[in-house]
């Protein structure tokens, strides 16, 4: 079997579909765990979303969120789950690039890498400390 027959579009889409579902389910589980912890600890407080203040810095960057979640801060765990959710479609694009390369389709490797570059540009702000 050569690379072309083993890596057709249908097979790629199947793997992508399962990858996306696994990513979403993992993210949802982390969000749910953090959410339960959040309500147990802060459930009695008054919610206030009427005026916009913006999130604290530790909930805005990948390193900040990781540190916050590692110290079992409930908001940090929820934010980690949301971050995993945002990374799921990005992982999908990355996988597509690899799959198109295995298929030997250079035009679509280039197309996919452009999309990946745009996504990385968006994420760049959250990578700093």
């Amino acid at each position, binding site marked *: 079997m050569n690379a072309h027959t083993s890596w057709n*579009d*249908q097979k*790629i*889409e*199947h793997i*992508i*579909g*399962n990858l*996306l*579902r696994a990513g*979403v*389910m993992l*993210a*949802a589980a982390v*969000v*749910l765990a*953090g*959410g339960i912890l*959040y*309500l147990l600890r*802060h*459930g*009695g*407080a*008054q*919610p206030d*979303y*009427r005026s*916009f203040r*913006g*999130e*604290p810095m530790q*909930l*805005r960057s990948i390193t900040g969120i990781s540190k916050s979640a590692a110290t079992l801060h409930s*908001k*940090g765990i*929820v*934010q980690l789950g*949301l971050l995993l*959710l*945002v*990374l*799921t*479609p*990005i992982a*999908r*694009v990355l996988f*597509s690039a690899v799959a198109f390369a295995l298929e030997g*389709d250079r*035009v*679509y490797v280039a*197309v*996919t890498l452009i*999309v990946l570059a*745009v*996504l990385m*540009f*968006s994420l760049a*702000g*959250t990578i700093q400390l």
Partner: protein
Amino acid sequence: MTTNPLTFGIAVILLAIMNTTEFTFLIGAGSFLAGFLGALTGLGGGVVLVPLLTLAFKVDIRYAIGASLVSVIATSSGAAAAYVKEGYSNIRIGMLLEIATTIGALLGAFLAARISTGAIGLIFGLVLLYSAYLSGGKQPEDSIGVGPDPIATRLRLDGTYPTGDGLQWYHVRSIPTGFGLLFGAGTLSGLLGIGSGAVKVLAMDQAMKIPFKVSTTTSNFMIGVTAAASAGIYLHRGYIDPGLAMPVMLGVLAGSLLGSRVLVQATTQWLRRIFALVIMALGVEMIVNALTGRL
């Protein structure tokens, strides 16, 4: 509705005495319903989330957009596995058009920080009215007869999809027009935190002549990637609040997964009409609130 001073007053008093647990469960229930009806009617739940949060729960529109955006990623990615099995989506069309939608999404997220919340609310209201108007129309006829397009042939965009009589071949047309329209759809998605599936399907069905089933499932694929492009910026800007996004994302995800499972064709027609009316009412409400400076 909330423009009524009495109900507005009641809503304010209720919100003032609610604690975080009660608030979270109410938001979760509302999001579940939005996701359920959105999936059941095929109109998408994201478009009603921001009005629900801002009008009924008095959430600042920036937090509402942040929470809506992550829920859009969840529903799009969660539904993808089911769509793939049917064999309708076209990964090449999706990937090529994602160049347009993701760059548009960056522009939308950039604009969101520079225009007033009132202006965002006004644009949101107009998009809601347009979505309601579109949902009244019939499902467009698939134009199978169109000939090949040189750009589509070169980019290997043409494909097949399963029908009752085996695989049906289709050609893709007007790629530059579709690309432009999808750039606009991406901008709206990044600005308003919605999937803007209505604009996507319009561009792909009407302009590019992609068969309905193919455009719907392919656009579902694209919505998650498009939303991820602006979500990174929103996260960095501090618009994504974990306490609010948690019930919204979990509620919408659970609702849409359930809604896509109970696809009862017979009942969806009137449900679709009612949901379209709700979307229209929310659109009017958003515009009124935006113009009176309450957003």
